[in-house]
């Protein structure tokens, strides 16, 4: 397999996976319970994404580092009703500052 073939196959599989969600027959998702479940899927997966992006280390390890502090600061900012952009900037600044100080 040449690298080009691998690049094209991997890219097309990624697109096909995205498209698959849009091509599932409407009837399969129309039951009220199915609708509630599919509506809740993004929340479940995005929360999972935050968790894995916060704790995920190299090769599937779990680590506590500057990212957890950043999420902590973000949560405090959200509790204080800070606007979205400020929350994001505070998260980045927290991690950057801690790393500049040599932690995480």
């Amino acid at each position, binding site marked *: 397999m*040449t*690298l*080009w*073939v*691998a*690049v*094209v196959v*991997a*890219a*097309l*599989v*990624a*697109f096909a*996976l*995205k*498209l698959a*969600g*849009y091509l*599932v027959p409407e009837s399969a*998702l129309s039951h*009220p319970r*199915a*609708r*509630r*479940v599919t*509506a*809740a*899927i*993004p*929340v*479940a*997966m*995005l*929360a*999972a994404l*935050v*968790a*894995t*992006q*916060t704790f995920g280390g190299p090769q*599937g*390890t*779990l680590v506590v580092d500057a*990212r957890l502090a*950043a999420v902590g600061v*973000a949560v405090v900012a959200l509790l204080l*009703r*800070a*606007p*979205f*952009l*400020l929350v*994001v900037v*505070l*998260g*980045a600044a*927290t*991690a*950057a500052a801690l*790393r500049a100080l040599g932690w995480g």
Partner: protein
Amino acid sequence: MNRSERSERSERSAQGCEVRPVEDSAEAPAPRLGDDHQPGPLDPGERRLVLRQGLSVALATGAYGVSVGALSVTAGLSVWQACVLSLVMFTGGSHFAFVGIIGSGGVAAAPAAIAASSMLGVRNGLYGLELRRVLRVHGWRRAAAAHLTIDESTAVSVTQGDPRASRLGFWVTGVGVFVLWNLATLLGALVGDAFGDPRTYGLDAAACAAFTALLWPRLRDRETVAIAVVGAVIAVVLLPALPAGIPVVLAALAALIAGRRR
């Protein structure tokens, strides 16, 4: 109106808007994301808020494109191959995984690289199950929407309280990330990692903070909180045991909480 007032107002509107799908009753087809019950254009304040969210997410994500472009070339891909991955694959986690494996194993590792990038791509398909109802697109727009279905566009879209804001958020974020991500990939592939490790600037933490902030207004009722917490716990517990991408996909099982009999 200052920023915090506007943000508060949007939170209130998200809160007051009882259209959240998880609250649908089984009998009456309650209004929900995707059913456009409010005619007319989006309130300008709300609109600005969604635009600001989408564009800041696009900027933070786009900055990673430099890194993925540089890593791709370091891993042995040509500039064109790096760009094709960004244009056609267009899902960052998969792109990073693909070039990471090619970088350590060469072309011989191509099947493993395709498998890894594909496992990380499965979650986009699951996002589509809900986004198709929010976006209500057909024909070429459906293909375009599918292509732009990634973590960032999904997060900005599904966390809005108003269906018009959800659609606007999806397209602004998706197109914004697409443009910046691809320009940045080309830049990174051409000049290398000129800006150094994105972690130095806390960009990885910015992504965590942004997703947290987007989810925040939705965490108002016990059921949604339970779904989020169970999803996060599933993923973290499975993270050390399973290949990358699979824990987050299995976290979708937490959504079954919303399907219990009521």
